[in-house]
């Protein structure tokens, strides 16, 4: 498909009627079906899994998954979601023209960074790994914020700057908690151990970690209380997204079950990106396929690319004389960082056809909204 030929011609959909700023909550306007949106995109499934894990014997139940089965699940969901951002980038109408560095320059730069990291694996490679681990919770936070705001817009909720600030604090708290908590990445990457082990620094850090942990769990409650008492009436899925992310970085991390969070994060991402891809493709003038065809094509391409990137690529370095340990670890770190960068661009709403998909509104309104980062 030639992106140059793509001119967004989304048929005019009746605009969402302005919803008065009432108090309380609403189901919100979902993309596919409330059950699907709440469980998969909202992260409701992960909350169910967290409850199962917290129940007596729960961690044993989930840890009985054999390693190969879990590896397959990771490939089909988490690793596929990394590939999804790349495929979305290259299939997004107008991407080459709008984002020339991202589409054409970044791949080569990524390769150069990986080659340097492989050559100096114990120094540069270790820093690349720490960059990935430090950035990762921010990426999760940004995805939660992006989805929260997206559902607000889609439900016709007008967010005041203070509402947005509260949403931002709610979504960023888990990142800050992970940043100060460490270990190794986050603050421990920037500040030497000799400083961090000073009694005063340790005391301040402990207070910060506990405080941010508490904030992570309490701000969603404050957000709900504000919506209930003063409005605007938030779509409940906004709160589900925020609470899910908070649970991933607190409860699942505490139970050494964070691998499950990566599965739910990937599932959430695959679902929303597939919806955007399908709607873009359905809006093309020469489209001859049904939505299921586009969804299946997109997902299978994601799995195939994930397999090549994560399972085949490292062996090229092994063939060149490196060990699989450094090859596999640094390929994972590099793909993650590439994914974080690409994601920060492909979800922008301002002056972007993405906005019409979110709201179903006519193109003319697309310029008035803020950026939703990812």
């Amino acid at each position, binding site marked *: 498909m030639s992106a140059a030929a793509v001119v967004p011609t989304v048929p005019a959909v009746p605009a969402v009627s302005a919803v008065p700023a009432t108090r309380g909550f609403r189901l919100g306007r979902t993309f596919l079906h409330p059950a699907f949106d709440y469980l998969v995109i909202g992260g409701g499934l992960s909350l169910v899994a967290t409850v199962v894990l917290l129940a007596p014997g729960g961690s044993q139940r989930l840890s009985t998954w054999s390693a190969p089965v879990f590896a397959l699940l990771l490939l089909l969901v988490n690793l596929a979601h990394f590939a999804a951002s790349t495929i979305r980038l290259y299939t997004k109408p107008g991407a080459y023209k709008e984002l020339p560095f991202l*589409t054409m320059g970044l791949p080569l730069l990524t390769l150069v960074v990986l080659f340097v990291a492989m050559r100096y694996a114990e120094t540069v490679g270790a820093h690349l790994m720490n960059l990935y681990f430090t950035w990762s919770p921010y990426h999760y936070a940004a995805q939660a914020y992006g989805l929260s705001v997206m559902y607000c817009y889609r439900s016709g909720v007008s967010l005041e700057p203070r509402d947005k600030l509260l949403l931002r604090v709610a979504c960023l708290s888990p990142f800050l908690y992970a940043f100060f908590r460490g270990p190794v990445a986050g603050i421990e990457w920037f500040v030497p151990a000799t400083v961090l082990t000073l009694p005063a620094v340790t005391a301040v850090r402990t207070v910060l970690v506990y405080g941010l942990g508490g904030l992570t769990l309490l701000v969603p409650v404050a957000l709900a209380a504000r919506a209930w008492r003063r409005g605007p009436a938030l779509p409940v899925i906004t709160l589900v997204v925020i609470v899910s992310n908070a649970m991933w970085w607190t409860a699942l991390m505490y139970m050494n079950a964070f691998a499950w969070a990566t599965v739910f994060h990937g599932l959430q991402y695959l679902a929303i990106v597939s919806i955007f891809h399908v709607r873009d493709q359905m809006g093309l003038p020469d489209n001859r396929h049904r939505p299921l065809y586009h969804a299946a094509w997109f997902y299978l391409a994601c799995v195939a690319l994930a397999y090549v990137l994560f399972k085949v690529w490292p062996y*090229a370095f092994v063939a060149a004389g490196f060990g699989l340990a450094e090859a596999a670890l640094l390929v994972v770190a590099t793909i993650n960082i590439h994914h974080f960068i690409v994601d920060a661009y492909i979800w922008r709403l301002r002056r972007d056809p993405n906005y019409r998909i979110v709201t179903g509104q006519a193109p003319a309104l697309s310029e008035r909204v803020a950026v939703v980062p990812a």
Partner: protein
Amino acid sequence: MTGLVGPTLGASHRLYRAAFVLGVALYLSCFLLGLAYELLRDKRLPAYDMSALSQAQEFLRRGDLPRAVQQYRMAARIDRGNYDTSRRLAEMLKSVGDPSAEIDVAEADRDRLPRLAASHRALGWVYYQNRLFDEADVSFRQALAIDPGDLEAQRGVGEAALERRRLPEAIEAYRQLLGRNQADAAAHNSLAIALMQSGRREEGIQHFEEAARLDPGFATNLQHARQELGAPRP
């Protein structure tokens, strides 16, 4: 490519296009090389469950410990937050008879993860197994300072004290351990040994009995203790 970026290209677009073509060529080469390498070497496609430690585990299966250690060491140095990799490396180094390296790894882990009770506790047991009981005691106590509920560190304090014949300390440590878990047969057994060595034989027998009741594997100690109790006291 021309169709991708439009007919009127500026210099920067031409540069981007060249970078893109070069990048795609390099990526394809890498993928083909990786695929060919696995197909020629193992006669199969790369496994979907391949991990960073797959090669190390393969070396271990073939008995090539030095190369397995090299892989584990590299993984531990790059992925410094992965405590499990470091722990497995330490175990492997011990199995190849390199206790100093085992201590180095455990100490490096402790330095990397100073807020993790498990890193201090693990170092404590490495010291203990290498008969460095004073160092072990310090590490176990640091683990307890971070996590007072770390029962294995509490056990370590008792064991290190027992080895150094600091019997009141050992008795106190085991009593604290039993205060948290009365059904800990090993703690009853160790407390019994400390009490017997302190000359408090009747109390010791009681704890040996409790240990044997909870775990019949400790019955031999009980028999020995009863025989000793029957013998004249020194």
